[in-house]
């Protein structure tokens, strides 16, 4: 039923439709006979041009019969389907039931497949070729907007195949990330530390992956690091997947690894957000996606650097 218009308009359409159909019948009947003079019935009208007059040959009766059939069909259709809006059709059809039926049909086809995979744990699913094909297509549809077509992300969106994890990279950990989402919370230290302290800390962080450009600054920054940063990032900066604190020693940077970017990170903090997929995709699809992502990360870890 129409939610947008008042029922007055629905009645208008219904009445206009029925009147139009009846009008068609009347037009057909009114125009199926004519009065003529009996001496030359095949001629049309009285007009004459240079001795020529117009004929009016009868049309095939099956023409008007076909038209009547279409009118009968129209009435039949309006009885069965809700074309007149104010009366539901006898068949009880509506676009919402059409949609619900389609969803039901697709679920009937896909549920057996998904249920079979749900019975296995993520790691087992991750070596199933069929599951990986489904996972690949799901990934291309739902995940590539942020993580890229090749799964290697970009600034602010993690690379999923480098086997370097902010949160637990176990099969179950990946599934939890997908179901519940994640909220990265790197605090902002612009108000807490002075500018030169921030630069020193940044130099120390660089030194953890051997890229420091000023050893004295790095030495000064170590104290700040051990006092503040190690609480989340660990005493050696190896990170903490329970907290989502990155490993600072592996030279893999989510927001960029230049000195300027690290200083920016310290100043303004970072609030990375992975949206929860539980309600959007449902657990079955998340299960397959987790298996797919896990499989890709393992393949890259074993198969080589790229």
């Amino acid at each position, binding site marked *: 039923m129409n939610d947008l218009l008042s029922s007055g308009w629905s009645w208008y359409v219904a009445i206009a439709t029925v009147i139009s159909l009846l009008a068609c019948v009347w037009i057909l009947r009114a125009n199926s006979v004519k009065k003529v003079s009996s001496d030359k019935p095949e001629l049309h009208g009285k007009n004459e041009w240079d001795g020529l007059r117009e004929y009016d040959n009868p049309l095939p*009766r099956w023409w008007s019969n076909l038209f009547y059939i279409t009118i009968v069909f129209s009435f039949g259709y309006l009885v069965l389907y809700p074309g007149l809006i104010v009366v539901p059709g006898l068949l009880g059809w509506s676009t919402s039931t059409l949609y619900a039926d389609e969803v039901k049909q697709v679920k009937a086809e896909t549920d057996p497949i998904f249920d079979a995979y749900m019975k296995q744990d993520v790691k087992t699913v991750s070596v199933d070729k069929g599951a990986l094909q489904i996972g690949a297509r799901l990934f291309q549809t739902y995940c590539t907007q942020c993580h890229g077509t090749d799964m290697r992300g970009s600034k602010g969106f993690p690379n999923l195949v480098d086997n370097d994890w902010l949160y637990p990279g176990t099969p179950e950990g990946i599934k939890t990330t997908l179901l519940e989402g994640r909220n990265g919370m790197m605090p902002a230290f612009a108000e807490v530390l002075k500018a030169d302290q921030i630069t020193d800390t940044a130099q120390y962080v660089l030194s953890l992956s051997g890229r420091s450009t000023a050893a004295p600054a790095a030495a000064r920054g170590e104290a700040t690091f051990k006092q503040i940063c190690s609480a989340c990032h660990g005493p050696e900066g190896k990170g903490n997947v329970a907290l989502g604190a990155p490993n600072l020693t592996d030279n893999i940077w989510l927001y960029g690894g230049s000195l300027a970017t690290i200083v920016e990170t310290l100043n303004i903090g970072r609030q990375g957000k992975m949206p929860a997929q539980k309600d959007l995709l449902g657990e079955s699809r998340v299960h397959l996606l987790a298996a797919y992502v896990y499989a890709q990360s393992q393949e890259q870890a074993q198969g080589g650097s790229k």
Partner: protein
Amino acid sequence: MSSTTGETKVISLYQSQKKIYAKSVRGRFANWRVAMVLFTQALFYGLAWLPWNGRQAVLFDLTARKFYIFEWVFWPQDVLYLTFILIVSAYALFFVTAIAGRVFCGYACPQTVYTEIFMWIEEKFEGDRAARIKLDDAPMSANKLWRKGRKHFFWILIALWTGFTFVGYFTPIHTLGHEVLTASTGPWETFWIVFYGFATWGNAGFMREQVCKYMCPYARFQSVMFDRDTMIVTYDEARGEPRGGRKKSADPVALKLGSCVDCSLCVQVCPTGIDIREGLQYECIGCSACIDVCDTVMDKMAYPRGLIRYSTENAIEKHWDFAAIRKHMLRPRIIIYFAVLVMLVAGLVGSLALRNPLKVNVIRDKGVLAREIEGKYIENIYMLNVMNTAEKAQRFTVSVDGLDDIRVDRGSRIEADPASTAASVLAIRIPVEVAEKAKSGSHTIFLTVKSETDAGISVREKAAFLIPR
């Protein structure tokens, strides 16, 4: 002239069409028509069963959106060829019409072909013209039911076979046959077989000339392609009039009679119910049944044939012989039609021969604009879609040019199954030094996708590479 004071009456503007009982005829042109019926139907009914490359030779697989015609597999992107084929067909039809009038209608049109088949069956069970008229006038009886029942049985059989064959060009006919035998056809297949069968039974059994007179668009516009040198079915009025019956031994000149003996056989054999002696009319489909039957009468009377014959307006008026008609066939209109037709056919054949079985789509990753590989490279990601329309598996290599030192880092080889698409992720990199020297923003690059086995199969596709600021 205005009407006199006659009374007015009410008449109907619609009229049930009277059934036409066409007398059957044998002759030269009837033989041609039988040959065309056999040829076109052998083609229609037979081609569906022909195998090719391990599948049906002619198959229009709508669900998979692949259209197989012998060696070629056409995809929806190839609809241009269909346009070409239709234009060539239309042009060929106009060309033939300009030369010889409505020969398509009389010899090759499916409506005529199926009507001829159905009329042949009707005559087998209901008898010749007189017998059919008598049977229809008679009240219902066991004999009438038996005759008409058998006729309809065979009509419906042929109609359903026609519907089955038609659907067999869209669903593989072997599968369809099996489904029909096990009564397991899908709902749409059943519908179309029955619908097309019903249309055949209705059009060939009952509608017949109504299609030609009222439904067919070609019937309406064919006459504009005629000119005074177009061959048409003509009654030689000068020779035939005045008409009248006479004994065979009598001399028509002495009796001041023309060749026409007014037997009215030309009217009886006409499937559209016209009298050709009144001149060419709109309803005439050019089937030449009247020519054949008049020739038999002329033979019986020992007069020369051709009182009704194929001739042109000019030839009748100016009393030309056939040599003159043939000379006038090569007139500018015909020559130009022919030249255009040859060019179109050459274009169609040429483009088919040169068709590249590889189609490529490069889609830039819109989420990741550009990526820096720590201090070393700038990388762009693409999704590469290759459409391998050939019926053998292919392996392709991908290379890139357009910027200094640009190369494909991942996805440089892609495999595709026969007649299917393959997609892969392409990573293209340039060294950071090149990126710093070039302008930031979009750069045009070119991807070359080449088959590893067939040197001729390659596509060069444009793409955009982004260098961030």
